[in-house]
């Protein structure tokens, strides 16, 4: 199951993602921690004039992970997204991406793919299993 590396303050219990060297409140080193890679959208925006090195439109969200640490993420779109939506988070090259695909949406997406029926079923099963695993605990 995918986890997001972070840190925890031994004094006040604050959680941070990604890991921070010192607690922002206690001037004390933080300890390593890890959080499940899903959570609730606190807010999101689409930036139409992103800085150099990014393409427009740039979608980003702030997601609260189980335990309370908040994580910055990119995403491929914000259609249907609301404050409070549950999203999965995947990491690619240490950049986090949120995704809102439900089981039904995954099924429809894979059904529309060309190819053998068995191949479509297999890829849906793989995706769905990954998702179930992510939300399982």
């Amino acid at each position: 199951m995918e986890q997001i590396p972070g840190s925890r303050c031994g004094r006040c219990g604050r959680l941070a993602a990604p890991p921070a060297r010192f607690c922002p409140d206690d001037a004390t080193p933080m300890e390593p921690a890890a959080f499940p890679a899903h959570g609730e959208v606190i807010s999101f925006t689409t930036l139409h004039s992103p800085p150099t090195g990014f393409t427009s439109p740039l979608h980003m969200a702030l997601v609260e992970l189980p335990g309370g640490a908040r994580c910055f993420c990119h995403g491929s779109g914000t259609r249907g997204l609301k404050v409070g939506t549950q999203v999965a988070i995947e990491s690619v090259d240490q950049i986090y991406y949120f995704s809102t695909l439900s089981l039904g949406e995954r099924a429809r997406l894979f059904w529309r793919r060309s190819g053998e029926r068995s191949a479509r079923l297999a890829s849906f099963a793989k995706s769905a299993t990954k998702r179930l695993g992510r939300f399982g605990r």
Partner: protein
Amino acid sequence: MGAVYLAGAAMTRFGVRAESLFDLMAEAAHAVLKASAIESPDALVVSAMNPEEFVGEGNFASHVGTYLGLARTPSLRVETATSSGAAALFAAYAAVAAGVYRSVLVVGGEKMTHLPTPRVSELIGRSIDPYERSYGATMPALAGLVTRAWMARTGSTLKDISLVAVKNHANAAKNPWAHFQAPVTLDAVFGSRLVAEPLRLYHCCPISDGAAAVMVVAERAPVRIAAIGQGADYLALRYRDSFTGFHASQAAARAAYQMAGFGPERVEVAELHDAFTPFELISMEDLGLAPSGKAARMLAHGETALDGRLPINPSGGLKARGHPLGATGLSQVVELYWQLTGQAAGRQVEARVGLAHSIGGLATTNWVTLLERAA
């Protein structure tokens, strides 16, 4: 702690200016030396957020001092990102209150419009947490995130935040020192291009050039600085647990009201940091100028208009007067000085106590200043 007064205030017109940063700062500073009839202040405090990169100058206080003709006056520069002007006023206030100096000239300015907008955005964005910046976060992006969360939590609407722009442009149209000189309609705000959803262009302040200056003195003068309070918050947005208000504003207000010995009920005019229009509504509640959840209704009912019960941003605010970073905090104080001494022709309100509120970064280092007409 001794009483501290303002003996004079001046600013340049904000906007796209051809003059150098030094000429803009000299225009404001020399006007204050004249208005306060003090030729040789004991010290000089300079504010500029990033002159190293905007105009390529270092050792900035000495540079400004020499240019102004105060080369051998002790000088220092103060920087707290976009609230640097308020921080410079605080440094002067503290020095005079402590009896270190009897008179301090404070001058702030920024020159920005000569650079392309993406570069300006990048330079301002340096005030953001580096990790969040690595995701492409800019000030409008973080403001968009805060605004969306605040709207979801409070039920505030796009119309609410758009009415702030309409009001502040209307005020700026009466202020010859303002960047924008024309009113805007609600439709124009709704029709402006998206910047960082849900924020559109007309919800955001412009990029401006300009300077502002005040003279801080120990001797009795027309306006008294009743208090200056500062509040701080995490640089990283992801460390904050609430977006319904800014902790740094709330803490700054608490400190200022305690220092002044009075609360928001005595405030009769306010200049708030509306770099993004929802911030005006958020700040009204943070500062106790509106009951929780009531700021949008006060605005819609005209209570914060020029002829309202509590005029807010009579200058046009950052939204329409403009936002030359290092000048902004001081320009709020200049506007209040003019309002309290009857020199705000065309937009004059009746007030004895004014409040200035300045946000540094994405509300990581905020200031609240209380000014009172000296009876």
